[in-house]
């Protein structure tokens, strides 16, 4: 519409301005976002109020999909699994990354190799790591049970045991995602002024107390970012489940997004799946706002 040449002086002025040039440069990106971002978001919002099997003509059902969610025990179970996963995954991965980054932030012999080793899982495809873990954790032929047996520990079911599978996924994803967190922390550690640490040491602070009182406050912005980011990723967990347990055994690793996938593409309940997506979206929004409010207050600013 803006491109049609109308004899309107305002429009002509706009055409000549930098404004238009700017939009022209941004247009490809904007078009992509609109087509693949905004349109699906709006469309799925509409779908969540429909009975939509993705094949025949949809019809309106009002809030029936949302009401059905409240009474769906399988959805409730998927929420429980997701929360349990998030509550374990986020603290362990963020704290673990902080420790690893701290250990790597020094002049070690071959430190580049260690940093590379930590980061490699991040760039390895989830499908590949999933298959490797499937074999490592195989109850009969797996390497992990082999080493456990050397220590006299009986063979574990791991991904085949409904009581262990979710924890195996936690371990697998921490291994897979740790490198990203470590990179962020390494960058943050570079920003800690060396003279402050020196001053603390001259004042008699030990390694631990200088870390706690000097380094840690500088890491708060990075920590807040990682907690928010990891929580969002954890609540949207899907790939690792899809390539390993597929929600099993006996539904013990069916997390919210995997349940959504089943509803949409196995049972063709498109409307119901869209409602799940929107509930998840709202939950993530609320949790993120709380995190930013609580965490933001405690951020040390050096400006």
């Amino acid at each position, binding site marked *: 519409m803006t491109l049609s040449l109308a004899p309107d002086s305002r429009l002509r002025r706009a055409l000549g301005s930098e404004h238009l040039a700017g939009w022209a440069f941004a247009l490809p990106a904007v078009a992509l976002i609109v087509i693949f971002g905004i349109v699906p978001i709006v469309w799925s919002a509409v779908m969540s109020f429909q009975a939509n*099997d*993705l*094949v*025949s003509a949809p019809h309106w059902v009002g809030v029936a999909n949302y009401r059905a969610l409240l009474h769906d025990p399988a959805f409730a179970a998927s929420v429980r699994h997701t929360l349990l996963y998030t509550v374990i995954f986020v603290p362990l991965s963020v704290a673990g990354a902080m420790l690893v980054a701290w250990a790597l932030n020094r002049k070690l012999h071959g430190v580049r190799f260690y940093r590379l080793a930590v980061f490699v899982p991040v760039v390895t495809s989830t499908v590949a790591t999933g*298959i490797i873990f*499937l*074999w490592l954790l*195989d109850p*009969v*032929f797996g390497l992990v049970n082999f080493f456990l047996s050397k220590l006299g520990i009986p063979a574990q079911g791991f*991904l*085949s045991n*409904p009581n262990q599978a979710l924890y195996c996924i936690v371990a697998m994803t921490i291994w897979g995602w740790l490198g990203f967190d470590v990179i962020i922390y390494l960058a943050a550690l570079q920003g800690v002024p060396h003279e402050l640490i020196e001053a603390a040491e001259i004042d008699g602070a030990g390694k631990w107390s200088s870390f706690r009182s000097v380094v840690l406050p500088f890491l708060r912005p990075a920590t807040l970012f990682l907690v928010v980011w990891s929580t969002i990723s954890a609540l949207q967990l899907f790939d690792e489940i899809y390539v*390993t*347990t*597929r929600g*099993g*055994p*006996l*539904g013990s690793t069916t997390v919210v997004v995997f349940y959504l996938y*089943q509803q949409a*593409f*196995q*049972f*063709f309940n498109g409307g119901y799946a869209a409602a799940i997506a929107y509930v998840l979206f709202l939950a993530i929004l609320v949790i993120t706002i709380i995190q930013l409010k609580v965490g933001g207050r405690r951020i040390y600013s050096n400006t």
Partner: protein
Amino acid sequence: MRRVAIGTVGLLALACAAVVLTAGCGSSGSGTAASPSAGSGRVVNITLWHGDTDYAAKADNVLVAQWNKANPDIHVTALYNGSNDYALQKTLTAIAGGKPPDITYLYGSWAANIVKSPKVVILNDMIAKDSSFNWNDFWPAERLAATVNGKIMGVPALVDNLAIVYNKKLFDRAGLSYPTAQWTWDDFRAAAKKLTIPAQKQFGWGYPADASEDTVWHWEAMLWDYNGDILTPDNKQAAFNSAQGDQALTMLGDMATVDHSIYIDTTNTKIQQTFNNGHIGMMVTGPWDLPSFPNVKFGVQVMPANHQTISGPDNWVILNNGAARVNASWTFIKWFTAAKQQMYYDLQTGALPTRQSQQQQPDFQTYLSKYPGTDLFVKNMGNAVKSRPTIPQYSKISTFLGQAIVSVMLGKSDAKTALDQAAQQTNALLAVPGS
């Protein structure tokens, strides 16, 4: 429902896919350039979507090229759909976008879902009017799977069935004689037990236990073999929670939890490799798996007792893009799925004959000797007399059954309790009107 083996052939498949795509793009480019001026020529352009790679894609292309040469008035463009696993999603998207393919390959399990689309061409009249087509030449299981509420929604494209595939070396070592057609389920169980050697990590049987349809259809073959049924004949109620169902699931559960003779793969990713490495004595599987066992000297035998098996036929579905293109599609697909062309395809790929009359084709014996083990699977088609219910609710019922089967195999529940619970869920689902 054939599962495509990813692995050594992967690269080749990708390369072939690229070739198919570029070839498709080239010809469709020139084709569509000419087609808008519909009056100039009288060529009808139709598009066919398939999920074949490798030898299969090559066979498709040879046949399509042959057709295009002989039939200048109907030009067919064969396009690779990326993977049959996503064919339904892509077809639905194309329908929504207003430009569906004229012919598309779809898994049989989707029949009841896709038939709800008004774009799907129902073939009953065309088949009835066309005596040369000979619908009854297709195997009974294929005809049942392509029929939803009496409506024929596709032409059988690929067929398979399940039989016992066993490792001869492990049988010899255990001093067991090979499975025979006279085996009972007790014989099967006893052999599996004898093949199980925990110290060597060796199991009698491998069973996919991810609670997916793969878990379920293996058991459904057992259920039918025990003379049980999935649903009542009117598809209104569960029938699997019968004495026969109880027996079939108890047998499976006892083998898993009492004999420990089953390698239970709850992720359904490792059985083929484990069998190929000589750690599993018997598998129940179909012809598509045979190329994954290069390290094993295997034999094939029909299922125990009544020899009932299950078949997963897939279909070519015609979509309505106007009368001219529907007619052209029908003319082409009739030729494409005729015994002669199908025999050529099977000879190149090792797929089972979709038509019974293919057994009289001159190449049939060459085909049997080229693919060892296939002769039994061809004979076994006659044992596939039942079909899974072609109702839209089946995929949901399958998940109820999947949970029931796995919970029994993991010793979390007994057969009767698990089946009764699944039946309760099934009956509640089927009681919902509509759909």
